[in-house]
């Protein structure tokens, strides 16, 4: 089971994170709301939403990533045919079963057509809720894209303010940029720790922490991550003979924990991935002085990680992306793990894979769904991948 079962602060932190992960009823969010007068929370779907703005409007940002394998789908299937990915049907299931009642607003980023369409379904299903579709800037020209996105942010800030009764002024935005810069630093430290010593930071634990970060106030997340890093530093841990892999394609509908564990158990260390990529989309901190909205918009337009959901203006970009990520993570290869029926991940895959193979990077690819319960096929593929490292010493 998890390496942390040793009695350390670490085990407690992981258990805390797991409890947040398993909290599909958002009890935690309800408690947070109950604790302060007039508190409100706003949900957002993957991949990216400007959490700084939500917070500046006096609301708790809550990332909604579906029901995973914990929620049995009954009403959700009334809304989706068998050939639509699993995430939206579990999100609807959560909503229809009242589990999302704590949210006063829902934001739907332009991740793909399914999530775009979900925004319309929300408009019809919950007419009294604030629902907004976030059309992320896609064009090449930073000026035009930046001013477009800044306008969107202004509208969002104003309208969320009307919901919460808190008119977020520049100061609030700046303050929340400061907090989320802290969040980004904490997350970067966590990722670096795993990249350097993956035997100390099982990806299951890292994942539970960043998932928890999606539903708790940023300050809490920062504290927990720092405590975790402090805890693991002291622990004895020994490196195993495993291959280092980058997992690509799981940025929206999330892989079940079982899949993450299966990959690491069958002889791989995950040293980089794009789980919840939106939470660390910016490659650098947002400048804290100057006009905050301009800074926020500008950072998205100029300094966003490359991801399938944003247009790639550079014709060479797709072909080169995997090499850059593998080198940065000192990985032996790539596991393309995409949700079934996921347009962004699956349409990108041939481009990314060709790029990787052009640089002799070994790749494997498979599809999953958030409620997958059988891992035999994944085990066999990840295992074969690890075998070849075991038998051939890397490449």
């Amino acid at each position, binding site marked *: 089971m998890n390496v942390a079962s040793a009695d350390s602060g670490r085990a407690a932190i992981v258990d805390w994170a797991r409890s947040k992960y398993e909290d599909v009823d958002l009890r935690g969010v309800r408690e947070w709301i109950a604790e302060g007068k007039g508190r409100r929370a706003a949900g957002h779907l993957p991949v990216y939403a400007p959490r700084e703005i939500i917070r500046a409007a006096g609301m708790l940002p809550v990332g909604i990533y579906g029901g995973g394998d914990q929620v049995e789908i*009954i*009403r959700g*299937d*009334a809304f989706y*045919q*068998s050939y639509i990915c699993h995430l939206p049907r579990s999100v609807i299931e959560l909503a229809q079963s009242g589990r999302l009642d704590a949210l006063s607003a829902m934001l739907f980023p332009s991740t793909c057509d399914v999530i775009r369409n979900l925004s319309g379904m929300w408009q019809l299903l919950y007419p009294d809720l604030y629902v907004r579709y976030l059309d992320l800037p896609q064009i090449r020209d930073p000026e035009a894209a930046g001013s477009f996105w800044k306008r969107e942010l202004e509208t969002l800030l104003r309208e969320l303010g009307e919901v919460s009764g808190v008119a977020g002024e520049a100061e609030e935005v700046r303050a929340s940029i400061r907090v989320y810069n802290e969040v980004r630093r904490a997350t970067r430290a966590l990722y670096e720790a795993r990249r350097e010593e993956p035997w100390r930071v099982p990806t299951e634990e890292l994942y539970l922490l960043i998932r928890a970060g999606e539903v708790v106030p940023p300050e809490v997340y920062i504290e927990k991550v720092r405590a975790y890093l402090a805890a693991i530093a002291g622990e004895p841990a020994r490196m195993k003979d495993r291959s280092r892999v980058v997992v690509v394609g799981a940025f929206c509908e999330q892989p079940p924990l079982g899949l993450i564990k299966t990959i690491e158990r069958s002889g791989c260390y995950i040293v980089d991935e794009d789980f919840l990529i939106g939470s660390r989309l910016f490659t650098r901190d947002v400048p804290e002085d100057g006009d905050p909205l301009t800074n926020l918009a500008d950072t998205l337009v100029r300094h966003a990680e490359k991801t399938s959901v944003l247009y790639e203006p550079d014709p060479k970009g797709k072909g080169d992306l995997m090499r850059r990520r593998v080198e940065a993570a000192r990985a032996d290869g790539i596991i393309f793990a995409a949700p079934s029926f996921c347009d962004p991940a699956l349409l990108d895959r041939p481009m990314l894979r060709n790029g990787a193979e052009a640089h002799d990077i070994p790749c494997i690819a498979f599809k999953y769904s958030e409620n*997958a*319960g*059988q891992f035999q096929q994944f085990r066999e593929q990840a295992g074969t991948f690890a075998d070849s490292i075991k038998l051939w010493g890397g490449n």
Partner: protein
Amino acid sequence: MKCVVGIDLGSTTTKAVILDEEGRILGRGITNSRSNYDLAAKVAREEALITARFALLRHEVEKRAGAEVLRSLLKAFRLSQTLAQLARLEELILGQIPRLVAEPLRAAARTSVGSIFDSIRTEEEAWFKDPDPPARSDFFRDAAGSAYMRLAEEIGDPNGVNFDLLVGLYDRCIIQVENEPLELGFRDHIGSALERIGNPDAVREGVEQAVHVPLDEICTVGTGYGRARLPFPKEQIRSEILCHGLGAHRLFPDTRTVLDIGGQDTKAIQVDDEGIVTSFQMNDRCAAGCGRYLGYIADEMNIGLHELGPLADRSKRRVKINSTCTVFAGAELRERLSLGEKREDIIAGLHRAIILRAMSLLARSGGVQNQFTFTGGVARNSAAVKALRRLVEENYGERTLNISADSIYTGALGASLFAQREAAA
């Protein structure tokens, strides 16, 4: 007397229902359609006519000799049918031995096959004598099949005439038996049935009376998966959706939602107070979670379909089954068995998996209104019903759940009602 017929050509079973002039159900017939549709329709109709005959002679015989005698007459009749088919099957299998079995095993094979059939016949006789015999499948393939497998495993000898060889012979011949029309009809079997119960005069008279009533079929309507294969004009073909709706309405007039789980499709239907369909959903291009799913499992565990439910009912633990694909479910079953999970828990999990699929179709069709009627072969399965009851309650609240003992005939009943309307028109 005039009568109308409804035929439901399902993917696994074919059903026929006969109504009399007043629209009363006169007879029902069912057969395995895993062979030939046209034949299946013929057999189901014959079966329905046989039960119709019994319905007619019930009154006569009961009056003269009492209900008990009538029941044993019916059992004797069934026994006579079964023995005829057994004889045919044994004949075919013995015929195959020279082709399929190499010397020196042939003699041994003949003996084994002979003793298997003797045992089956003994069991059948016992069934006849048993005052209240255990439930069993309607179909020769299943009834004879599971007995044959069981006996083959018992007497199969690993380094002689083994299980595989005996099963091979059976597989080779059963399909032919299924594909032959029954050459013996009502009259022949009723004759030998009378013999078997000592041919009491009183009963014979009653039978004579009933046998001579003419039954003329003035209209037949066909429905079900294979309906397109029926040689009927368009107006005598109806969609199984409409037939199930109307049939369920006839069985339970307050029905608003109908769930039908058949061999390879599942239908969720909403009907109005006239039994007219207002909306429906069916499973798309894959038969995951349909009746055949249970069929595979039964085969996999080498037990009769009708034994599954009772087995699952013994479950104490909930096991989550992931495969909805019928074929993979078999593999998952094996995998979990080897992991030491309990048979009954796994089977219960499989039932729940089917019902979960059905729940999503129900949701798509507009939910579960009151009253809720469950039809199709799977409605006879106690474990499936239990799972359904529970999930409906959890998600839609209190609902009256109707299940008719004749639920498998719902489609055919609906078809016969349409036949009645056609005849009237």
